[in-house]
């Protein structure tokens, strides 16, 4: 077991998969000579050369589509968006080409592509650079959406995503690249998509968190433990397909649920999980499902406003106390 950062874990995953399969290549802005805008791809150009690690012009729609076309012709592209905010330019190719190709060709052309990059807020980068877009992509049948929150999850899931024969939207979090954690040494360590992880066991309240809110939820759980409330923290890890059974089993045990997410509440993943819980565990709910989401405004620049816009430990603690009827 090594203790490494999420950044390093992703780097390892890319390195291992590039080495393992000739058909895998990496493409994006500044991924090669710059070593990656966030240094996730550091050293890969040096090791694999510019046939496998390719710098692109600023041309998201173009290179996303190029990736899909390359996948149709047998390659396994890993396309980096410097941030997922820029993926918006490429959505026509992600959605109308990648997501639908297999279906509309009657099963002839699968697209084994990974679109990866940081999603969600950073530090004071303002509204156009701070969007958490997972619910957008999770909406489309044909795509898979993954959001890791720890180095081990990041590495294992990225390797699985690259090996997966379908388009995977792999959403990292810029604030978390430096977060450390244990990662198994096994060079073939993978984590299957579609499996949630119980990050902390508990009996009183279930907290479903993803990406940025996972460490926040864990901190909240610590605080709540001292207040006599035992929280179970579940990280779905894969948003589509969602391992709802693990979440429901937990809710049946605790009877109360808080969903913590960085994204806006409206039409978000939290709303989807809430609907599923209501459908499958209605008779087990002692309180309504509570969402702690990012505030429904564009992300402001000012530091204090930005902090208010994103869920924090206090808000999660308050929500847990609310569903436990403690205040």
């Amino acid at each position: 077991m090594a203790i490494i950062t999420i950044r390093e874990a992703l780097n390892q995953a890319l390195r291992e998969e590039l080495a393992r399969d000739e058909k895998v290549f990496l493409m994006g802005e500044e991924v090669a000579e710059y070593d990656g805008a966030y240094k996730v791809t550091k050293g890969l150009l040096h090791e694999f050369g510019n046939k496998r690690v390719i710098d692109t012009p600023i041309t998201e729609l173009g290179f996303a589509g190029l990736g899909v076309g390359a996948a149709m012709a047998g390659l396994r592209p890993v396309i980096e968006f410097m941030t997922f905010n820029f993926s918006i330019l490429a959505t026509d190719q992600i959605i109308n080409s990648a997501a639908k190709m297999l279906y509309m060709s009657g099963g002839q052309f699968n697209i084994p592509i990974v679109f990866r990059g940081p999603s969600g807020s950073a530090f004071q980068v303002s509204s156009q650079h701070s969007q958490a877009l997972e619910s957008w992509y999770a909406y489309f049948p044909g795509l898979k959406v993954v959001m890791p929150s720890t180095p081990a999850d990041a590495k294992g899931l990225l390797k699985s995503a690259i090996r997966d024969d379908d388009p995977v939207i792999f959403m990292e979090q810029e604030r978390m690249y430096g977060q450390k954690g244990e990662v198994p040494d096994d060079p073939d360590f993978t984590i299957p998509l579609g499996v949630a992880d119980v990050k902390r066991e508990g009996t009183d309240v279930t907290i479903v968190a993803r990406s940025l809110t996972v460490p926040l939820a864990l901190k909240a759980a610590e605080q709540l433990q001292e207040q006599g409330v035992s929280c179970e923290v579940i990280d779905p890890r894969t948003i589509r397909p969602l391992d709802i059974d693990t979440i429901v089993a937990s809710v049946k045990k605790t009877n109360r649920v808080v969903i913590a997410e960085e994204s806006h509440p409206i039409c978000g993943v939290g709303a989807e999980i809430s609907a599923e819980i209501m459908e499958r565990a209605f008779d087990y709910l002692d309180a309504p499902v509570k969402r702690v989401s990012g505030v429904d405004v564009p992300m402001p620049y000012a530091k204090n406003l930005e902090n208010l816009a994103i869920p924090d430990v206090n808000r999660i603690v308050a929500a847990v106390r609310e569903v436990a009827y403690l205040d």
Partner: protein
Amino acid sequence: MATKVIMPKLSPTMEEGQISRWLKKEGDKVSMGEPLAEIDTDKATMEMQALGNGVLRKILINEGQSAPLGQLIAVIGEADEDIAALLSEAPAQPQLQEQKETDVPPKAPDATQPQPQLQEQKEADRPPSAPNLAPANGRQPQASSTASGTGRMIVSPLAARMAAEAGIDLRSLQGSGPGGRIIKRDIEAVISKPKAAPTPSYVQQAGASAYRDEPASQIRQTIAKRLVTSIGPVPHFFLTTEIEMDRAAEMRKGINALDPDLKISINDIIIKVAAAALIQHPQVNASYQEKIVRYYEQADIGVAVAIEDGLITPVVRAADQKSLSQIAGEVRELAERARSKRLKPEEYTGATFSVSNLGMFGIDEFTAVINPPEGAILAIGAMSAKPVVRENEIVIRQMMRVTMSCDHRVIDGATGAKFLQTFKKILENPLYLVV
């Protein structure tokens, strides 16, 4: 400033009240705290106090009439005040603001006078249990979850399921969740599971006794339901007589000596004698059935048996045709099955006449409630040695008092009396049984 008098919640389970008696009439002066009316609730008759000063301007609900909780029933105001606006509100707003299922605190108390009393009650209503109980963020005390009249009860899905599984009536509960929501811990409190700290709901009224609410068992509910339909509509009258039991007691001893397996009791003899008397007085072995009187052809005697949480009356069919030993055996078996709750419905329904014996508890006499649709029931008291006058001399005899309750719709005084005469005659001279 006029005061609305609304039907107050005088018991936790009250949903509507009936005006038993107005203690003031329109035009009378009224001051704060004075009794205004007597109100019949589901439990008892309670006094309602005035919560304002002034004159009782208008009574809206008369004696004998009912109103749901929160409905405007009278107005107190100044003698010359215009109360038309207030009057127009009755009874369009049958509900207290608090009964609505919102988390918003109830309307400010100035509007409705009875509120302070209610609030006090509600605050008192809330369980004082240790774990989790401060009012939510300084909210007003929560409304009772059993809403008035047409109000909705709010329950979490989990609590609803738990209550259904445990056979708990949600209407008897106070919810401790927001807006009076009944939640898991409220159910747990009732079930008193070991893992959750049991939170008995102690209601505190100044001066009144503390009490504990438990859900009524099925059998209790059944007894309640059935006997209310008896003592209410059935016009009972009661006949008492004293019976000399010496010969019956001797007969019993003699029979039991014949065979150790025979264990005849006095009650078995009573059953047989009652059955015999019924055959001789068919008008008593009858039932009033709404324009029909049903006369039974055999005497099916219901024998009251006390069981763990109530009372049940297994039936000895055609007791007039059975021997004492048969009756004894049957009663023993039925009683045992009654206590272990293994009676089949056809074994405890359809009696034509019932016998209830509290003699073993030392009761001298008592009046029993008829089991509808039977025409009568015999309440047997204890046998005890008493001095009596026989042929001008005081002698000691075993005396037993019996009281017969009769349904006057089918049995008149004389009819019942004649039956009782026969019963007494046979019981005092059991040899009549073989004649």
